[in-house]
């Protein structure tokens, strides 16, 4: 069915991950609510990595048959 689902997943998590990470990096706070962890930065980066991996998967998947793999 026409659409490779890895594209929307990858795009969405890259976007949200970047947003969270940036917000975590620029917000000045003692992070009391999240037990002293800058959770937005940490988790934003996790989402970003996941999103980029999905996008890579989609790009590789579209470059023709997986020759040699």
């Amino acid at each position: 069915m026409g659409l490779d689902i890895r594209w929307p997943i990858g795009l969405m998590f890259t976007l949200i991950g970047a947003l969270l990470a940036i917000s975590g990096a620029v917000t000045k706070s003692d992070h009391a609510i999240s037990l002293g962890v800058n959770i937005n930065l940490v988790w934003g980066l996790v989402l970003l990595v996941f999103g980029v991996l999905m996008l890579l998967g989609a790009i590789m998947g579209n470059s023709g048959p997986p020759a040699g793999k």
Partner: protein
Amino acid sequence: MQPIHLAGIDYTILLAYVAFVIGIGWTLARYMKTSSDFLTSARSIPTWVTGLAFISANLGALELVGMGASGAKYGISTAHFYWVGAIPAMVFLGVFMMPFYYGSKARSVPEYLKMRFDERVRGLNAFAFAVMTIFASGISMNALAKLLNSLLGWDYNFGLFVCSGVVLLYVLKGGLTSAIYTEVLQFFMIVLGFAPVVWLGLKDVGGWHAMTTTLQSVAVNPSTIYIKDAGISYAPNAWTSAWTPVLAGPAHNPLGVDWFAMIFGLGFVLSFGYWCTNFLVVQRAMAAKNMTAARNTPLVAAVPKMFFPFLVIVPGMIAAALTTLPDKGYRIPPPIISQANYDKAIADVKSVNAADAVKTIGDDLGKKVDSGKILSLVAANAASKLSDDQIKQGLYNSVAENDYDGVILSLVKKYCPPGLLGLALTALLASFMSGMAGNVTAFNTVFTYDIYQAYFVKGRSDHHYFITGKVITVVGILLSIGAAYFASMYNNCLDIIQLVFGFVNAPIFATMLLGMFWKRTTGTGAFFGLLGGILSSTLFHAMTIAQGNAPGIKGGYLEVDKIFPSEMAQNFWLAAFAFIVCFTLTVVLSLATKSQKTDADLKGLVYSLTPKIVDNNVPVYQKPAVVGIVLLIVCVILNAIFW
């Protein structure tokens, strides 16, 4: 719980998700040309996608809110829903049953029943299933609207209609494919949205070991956090061991079940009934692109499913542990009490004399209250005037009832700063919406093919049924909204869902099992067996009740012949009873009647008349039997670890 205010970043994340979901629907719309594209995805989707959708379709209110609630209420025993229930059933579906569903080219489970038996069995199953999907969808939307109301202060009706509207938009555009794709998106959203909350919760409670130690005091005296009535006590491991408390008998575990009800009622009947015959999940596997992919769908799904207890049950256990630690400033949330009632109670705290305090304030709040806490609150206010907010907090802590469905969001609220809060809320929202989408896409297929095309308007062009499918989608959503209002009457949605499954699903698994593996089963036997099973479960419910419930909607409305220690036990026994009635009736009637189908008719539909699938050219790690055995071994190991 005080409503919270979402920051710009939270709304951005929420809107991004909604935009992507609707975007997927819009992108897929141009591939929707026939009723089969719209209602069955034209059997074209890769295994990992159908596999993740397979578990995601079930990941609505049932999973997140219900499992979190049960984690607090019953502890790690809740994991039996996975390790005794879902996993073995999913392996059985993939290895043994999927060849008949997929190989028969049926478009739905009711249609398979028509091929195997006759029109009556299909009609009965299609009708029962249609009703059930509407209820499941309504329950999910009710939970969502309640959540938006308590957490964001949105109006209940507004939340219900807006979310239903979003679901309507993407399902109407992209049909089943749209639902399956968004379910995959939602799967990742839930895992990645909740993992940080579980992590922070565990960190707060002091790690896994500290949590289990704290839960020992809960088990010994559960009434301190209002989980059970005063005087009830369990062995210290009742919340942290999955098997020893169950083996000790119904009085020794918070579920109130024994091993037979657990293994036969939940493990065999309820779970197999749900995972192996419920078209909502089976539909995802039937959309796979070939037989191997279809058989591997539930097996792929079983891998993450096995570890879900850590994501959905552990938060409930964390909540119960945190509640017993006074310095954490947390309790399992009480039922929602209106501000007007709080205001009345606050006024009375200031004016009432100590002798009447407990009764007056309890009446003001309309809930059971902890008399010790009320008296010390009144005394504290008399000694030094407290502010209204302090009194309200004191009243909140004194309510001696729990709203377990609120556990998950109370943790989200406790640990998530703006940003992560948006992510976690979006994950919750996503699960509820896709719960609705899953049910609606199953409903429209069954209604269009098995009710409308079968009985009302036969033999029209495909375009006619394509349009019908779309209209039925709208009708299904409207009916779900009605069901949501109905569901708002209940407290723990998991118990209710299990109950409905008990009525409808327990007997159907007996029918399916006999139909697939015993070629002598006749249409008449199956039909009356099924009918008898459903009637007997309804009757069983009407004549039994769980301890602490008044006769009425929770059972016992005809007479009370048997009192079970918990609703859970009542449900498990009901399922076991319905299964046995259906199984026996079907066998007896089949032997007494003559089959209308010849062996040739049944080829591909019954085990003994279908050539075995030889998957020689499939790599060993893709062979369903091999994968299934590995999964079962891991499952046994998990059971042993939490014995």
